[in-house]
């Protein structure tokens, strides 16, 4: 099948030859303009979400009847929501779960997808065909619908959401890494390892996966962005983390009910937070892509 992602990856295996680990990480996070913008923004967002609440104390526990849906004021910089909670404070806490779930599911998906793709590509033949048809099958179900099904089957909690998002997201890295493995398996060092009697598991873990790491890291970064977006969509559909946990998508969903009354502050900031975070991770992904020279697209 034709996929832009299956292009032969130009010498992706030689990433970082002669460079120390620290230098590679530095090149990835701070190597170009896009990386710098992405990294800086992500750091700011993380500080905002995790350190912000230490300085900006708000009541997010006891609903306050007197403060329901008040516009921004000096006491409540971004106004209050339908429970009388401070919107800015909620934005900080809501970001925590968005970031945690996004990162965790992206890592989980990348690790599993990479191993799966490497195994399929390395084994080849019948197994490759079988494993990749499974991927094709799952890819044929539109993402949101698949997530909807999974969310219906497993009642949602934070760990379950991470699992569900990962269950959908591993398909991309599996395809990518398989494509790269097809070129890596013909390399001399893989052949040499094979001749020396290395087992398939050892070859995949020690030779294939490390050499596809550039592609994997780039893709993981994009996956974080995608996961945050998908989490927002799921939360909007009422299938996000259950209350009292909040997240940006859920805030948007709740806030949209007050839009008719002019409650713009319940809709604009939460959406902007999602966009800023997603753009930052996409920038970082492209920056890393430039740095490692791996040609991967989502």
């Amino acid at each position: 099948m034709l996929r832009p992602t299956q292009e032969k990856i130009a010498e992706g295996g030689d990433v970082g030859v002669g460079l120390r680990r620290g230098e590679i990480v530095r090149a990835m996070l701070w190597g170009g303009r896009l990386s710098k913008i992405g990294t800086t923004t992500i750091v700011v967002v993380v500080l905002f979400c995790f350190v912000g609440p230490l300085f900006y104390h708000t009541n997010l526990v006891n609903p306050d009847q007197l403060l329901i849906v008040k516009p921004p004021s000096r006491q409540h910089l971004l106004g209050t929501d339908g429970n009388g909670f401070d919107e800015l404070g909620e934005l900080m806490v809501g970001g925590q779960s968005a970031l945690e779930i996004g990162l965790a599911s992206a890592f989980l998906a990348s690790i599993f997808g990479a191993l799966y793709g490497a195994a399929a590509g390395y084994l080849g033949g019948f197994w490759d065909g079988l494993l990749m048809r499974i991927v094709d099958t799952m890819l044929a179900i539109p993402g949101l619908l698949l997530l909807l099904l999974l969310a219906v089957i497993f009642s949602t909690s934070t760990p379950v959401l991470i699992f569900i998002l990962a269950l959908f997201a591993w398909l991309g890295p599996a395809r990518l890494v398989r494509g790269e493995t097809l070129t890596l398996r013909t390399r001399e060092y893989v052949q040499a390892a094979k001749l020396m009697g290395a087992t398939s598991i050892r070859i995949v873990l020690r030779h294939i996966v490390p050499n596809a790491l550039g592609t994997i890291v780039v893709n993981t970064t994009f996956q974080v962005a995608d996961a945050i977006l998908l989490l927002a969509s799921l939360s909007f559909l009422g299938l996000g983390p259950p209350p009292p946990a909040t997240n940006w998508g859920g805030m948007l969903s709740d806030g949209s009910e007050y839009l008719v009354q002019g409650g713009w502050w319940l809709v604009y900031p939460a959406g902007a937070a999602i966009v800023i975070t997603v753009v930052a991770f996409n920038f970082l992904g492209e920056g890393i892509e430039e740095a490692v020279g791996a040609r991967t697209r989502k």
Partner: protein
Amino acid sequence: MTAYIARRLAQSVVILLGVTLLTFVLLHLIPGGPAHGILGPRATAPQIAAFEQATGLNQPVLQQFVVYLDHLLHGNFGYSYKLNQTVGSVFAQDLPKSLALVGPPTVLSLAIGVPLGLWQSQRRDKLDDHLITGVGYVLYAMPDFWLAFILIDVFALRLFWLPPNAPDSTTWTAAFTDAEAMILPWATLTLVSIAVFSRYMRSSALDAMAQDYIRTARAKGAQRGRILRKHVIRNASIPIITLVGLSIPGLLSGAILEEVVFNYPGIGLATYNAALVKDYPILLGTTIVFGALTIFGNLVADIAYAYADPRVRVA
């Protein structure tokens, strides 16, 4: 070419079968099983047993699957107990409405996005290119439903130019007779897709312009416009074929969100409501239909690609 089409067609059938099996098994994992989902949490054990007996749900899953497949092949998608109508009639009623929702934006976003990307490729790294790329990034990172909220807030609630809801009607033609109410849903989907298409077209055109045949054409003294028309556009458009085929699942996912936001009674809203009440025959049917549309889109794209670019036929 015939062999290629035959091979891809066989693959598609296998994948569609896989989608059906996967969804079927997945939905049997619903806590308590489908009977529980249909009868509700208060159903007693004897009630569930009687229902399972009557509907064959007490048979082994694989056997149920074979029966379901047999029904499918006869055009019978099952029966929704929650809606009290056949799944087929729900599709017949709602699917055209969803197509009326996603169709015009697809055409419109291609008509705008492709020339826009091409123009950007000619203005590479100039201010306007960066500006459009930046806007594209933001649109790309925007949850569809948030963009819809903004458009509703601005154009419906503040300016009063357009209605905030899509037409609520039982026929798909309402989308065109009451087109004013469709402008916001269409605009949302169009904006999101333009970002994808223009971005892809830009990089595709830049790739084409780096090819040897462009240099040859230039060396022969061909004019800029002619190179663009004869060489760049034609070659850069080929990958767009694949992209259109691949964009179908995204469009369908978008349709679910848009229909919920705008309260538009298409198949997306029906699926969402089915998910909330665990109406599993509808969920199963929608997944199969969406899966079939996706696979069909990929198939058509691949065949069109092979037709446009003979090199892939051999590979």
